[in-house]
Structure formats: C-alpha cells, structure tokens
C-alpha cells in the first residue's frame, strides 16, 4: 500500500514541521534579547518550512511539483541567511533606539 | 454560516476599520494605511461575492487585480506628497489638524 505509506510520511513530516514553527515562535517570545530571538527565528523556521515542504512532496503528482517545492525552500533559505545578517547588523546599530 | 460569509464579513469589518483610521488619525501616513484597508476590504467583500459559486468568477478577480495595482499607484503618489510636505514644513500632518490638536 504505497499510497498509505506516502500519507503516513506526509502526516509525520508536516507534524515535525509544525513543531519547529512553534519552537521558533516560542523562542521569539521567550528569548531575552534581540539577537537570541533572531537565532530562534532563522533556524527553527526554515527547518520547519523544510519539513512541511518535504511532507507536501510526498503528495506531489509529478517531478515538476517536487522541483518547485525544492526551489521554494532554497529561495527561503537564501532569504533567511540574508535577512538574519542584515537585521542583526541593523539591530546592532540601532540598539537602544526607539 | 459558511466560510465564505466569514470572509465577506471580514471584508466588511476591514472597510469599517479603514474608515476609522482615515478619520481618526492626523498622521498622514496612517491615513494612507486606512485608505488601503478600505480598498482591500472592498476587494475581499467583492471577491467573496464572486466565489459563491465554483469555480471562482474570473470577472471580479480581473477587476480586483487592476484595483490592487491602481491602489498601489495612488498610495505611492500619496506617500510622495506626504514626504514632500514633511520636507517643506517638518510636519506630516495637515496644518489645520495640528492647530486643533
């Protein structure tokens, strides 16, 4: 029953993805300073998205959908790596302002 | 109540919130935000009306897309007016408003 197996994989992987998203949010709420919060967000979120994408991939009908999912994750990683550095640097300059 | 009604009522609520923002704020940039809330609320209301039968009616969709683009152009013009005003007067509120407040 390959269908059933794919469904189980989707259920497990999207569940793990959700846990990481929740971890990112909990970190964003609980961590004591701007930079630690940025850690939580960058790492946990993109891992969460990775698992969701992987889980969705088990429901794909053809390879182009799989490749699109991969592209989405790659672009999200690129954005995350950039945004984390830029926002951390801006926060370093702005510390104490507002 | 159907899900569609929920989204239509959300649109109606957004229009109300936008009107409140437009009327109550003196800071002009916040009025631009209010204006955009009214616009997107209208689109959502209209779009939900077009989605009552499947598939979604394409005519509202096409009009909403043009609407989003025009609303953006109007916002850009408004923002440029506000920054020009701020450069000239050092304020981003209208003169009579700052006298009253």
């Amino acid at each position, binding site marked *: 029953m390959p269908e059933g197996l794919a469904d189980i994989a989707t259920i497990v992987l999207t569940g793990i993805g959700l846990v990481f998203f929740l971890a990112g949010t909990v970190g964003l709420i609980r961590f004591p300073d701007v930079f630690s919060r940025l850690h939580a967000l960058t790492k946990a979120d993109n891992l969460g998205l990775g698992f969701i994408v992987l889980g969705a991939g088990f429901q794909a009908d053809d390879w182009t959908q799989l490749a699109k999912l991969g592209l989405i994750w790659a672009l999200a990683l690129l954005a995350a790596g950039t945004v984390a550095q830029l926002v951390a640097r801006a926060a370093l300059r702005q510390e104490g302002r507002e | 109540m159907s899900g569609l009604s929920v*989204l239509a009522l959300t649109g109606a609520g957004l229009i109300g919130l936008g009107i409140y923002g437009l009327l109550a704020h003196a800071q002009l940039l916040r009025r631009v935000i209010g204006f955009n809330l009214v616009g997107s609320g209208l689109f959502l209301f209209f779009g939900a009306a077009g989605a009552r039968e499947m598939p979604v009616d394409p005519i509202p969709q096409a009009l909403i897309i043009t609407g989003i683009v025009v609303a953006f152009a109007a916002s850009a013009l408004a923002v440029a007016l506000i920054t020009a005003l701020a450069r000239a007067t050092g304020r981003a509120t209208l003169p009579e408003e700052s006298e009253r407040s």
Partner: protein
Amino acid sequence: MTLALDLGLDLAFGALILATALAAVAGQGLFRAVVFFITYGLLLALVWARLGAYDVALAEGVIGAGLTGVLLLMAQGRLRRADALADPPARGKLAAALAGASVTAALVWAWFTLPLPQRIDLDAPMAASGVENPVTAVLLNFRAWDTLLESIVLLAALVGLWMLARDAEWRAPLGPGFHARAGGVLSVFGRLLPPVGLIYGVWLVWAGADQTGGAFQGGTVLAAVILVAMMAGLARAPRVGAPAWHAALAFGPGVFLLAGIAMIAVGGGFLTLPPEFAKPVTVTIEAALTLSIAVTLALLVVGPPEQQNGGGT
C-alpha cells in the same frame, strides 16, 4: 468533522486579518502600524489563495506585502529624518468609530439580504479568446478598455509623482540614491536574486495565458526584482529625462493602443479581438505591458528625483 475544521480555518483567517488591521489603525507608533500593515498584506494573500483566486493572491502578495511594505518603511524612515514622525493620538474616536461601524453594518446587511447577481456566462466567449486563463481573457480581451486606461493611469501617477520634485533637483537621479557596501551581504544578495526573479517573472507572463499568472502578476514580480537590484546598489536609478526609460514606460500602453487600432483594420473594431488573432495579439500586448508595468511600479517606489546626500557615513 472536516467541514467544521474548514469553517474553523476561515474563522481563523478572518480573526487574524481583523486583528492585524485593528493593530495597524489602533496602536500608537508609526513603525508598528507599518509592520502590521505588511503582515496584513501577507495574510490577505493567503486568504485569496484560500478562496482559489490565485491570480489575486499573487498580485496581493507581491504588491501588498512586498512593494507597499518597502514604500511605507522608506517613507517612515524619511519622516523620522525630517523630524515629522509625530503621531498625535487619534481624535474624534467616537465619531470615526460610529462612521466605520455603520458602513460595516450596512455591508453585513447587504451580504445577507441582497440577491445573488446573475453570473455572466463566459463559456462561449472563452472559446474565442484564444487563452485558457479566464482572468487573462477578461483583462486583455473582454474588458480591454479598462486595462488600457489603467496602464495610462499608472503612467499618470508616475508623472504626478515626478512633479513633486523641487526645481533645483529636477535633473538629479530618481530616489534617494541607494548605495550599499561593495561585497557586503546586501550587495551579494542583490547579485544572486535578479536572475532567478527574471526567469520567474517571464514565466509568469508566458504561463498567464493558460494558468495562474499574467502581465500584472509578472510585472509586479519584475518590478520587485528591479527594486532589489537598485536597493542593493547594483542598478543606478535613472534621471527623469532618460530616453530608454521613457521608451520602457510608454511601450506597453503604446503597443496596446496600436494593437487596438490594428483590430479595426482587420475588421474587429477598436480593441475587439477577432478569434483568429486573439491569442497572438493577447500575448504581444501582455509582453509589452509587462515591461511597462514593471518599470512604472519600480519607479513609483523609488520616488521623485532628489539631491543625493552623499554615500554612507
């Protein structure tokens, strides 16, 4: 059970959207309001996707969360530097709230009482439109007048925005003169993203004939890509007089108009596409419009010409 969850999903979306909108109008502080407005645009894009209106979701996602976000954040920064950030507390709250609430109430009444309007049957005209995405057919064929005028409105907005320049700055490059550290994070990102953005934007326009996408959706993506390249200091903003940019701005409306007139010659009537020409003409107009929409939207965010205040600190 799933049905209840389905409704639950719509309720959650509605509640989140109303909450972000409320926070954007009710809270103190301009920066916070702007960030809430950006998240609001994102959520709205999700709701459009939820409704199955993927074309609208694309436009809302790129414009609402991307371009408008940059526009408002930059404006907020300028107001701060011009010392005009004062955000006086809301006044006349009661009257404003009453006005808003009464409009909302009227719309709620309308939703539940007014009859379902007669739906226009598009099956027959779709067959003659030469394309398969009905949204594209409506935009460029059935309601081509609207779209032509819209492309001219966009141009008018840009010209209006340029008119706000001071006389002394008229010949300066557009916008605040973006710059970034050579070899820095922003600059490297700005070198990596545009090629992928170009492929994706062109694909959106081309695919728009038969599936999600089209001139507006592709144009907004390309506008965002142009903007990223400019903000990363890789593409210099033009001056008002730059002829190549003028040509790019006028290309779309121009081709649209010419195609409309050409249709009279082949026996259709102004902007009435005979079925045998519908597909090639639609695709041509779309390609031309995309270029103009992309450039116009990007320049709308960049702003009027301005004296540059020198690089860095």
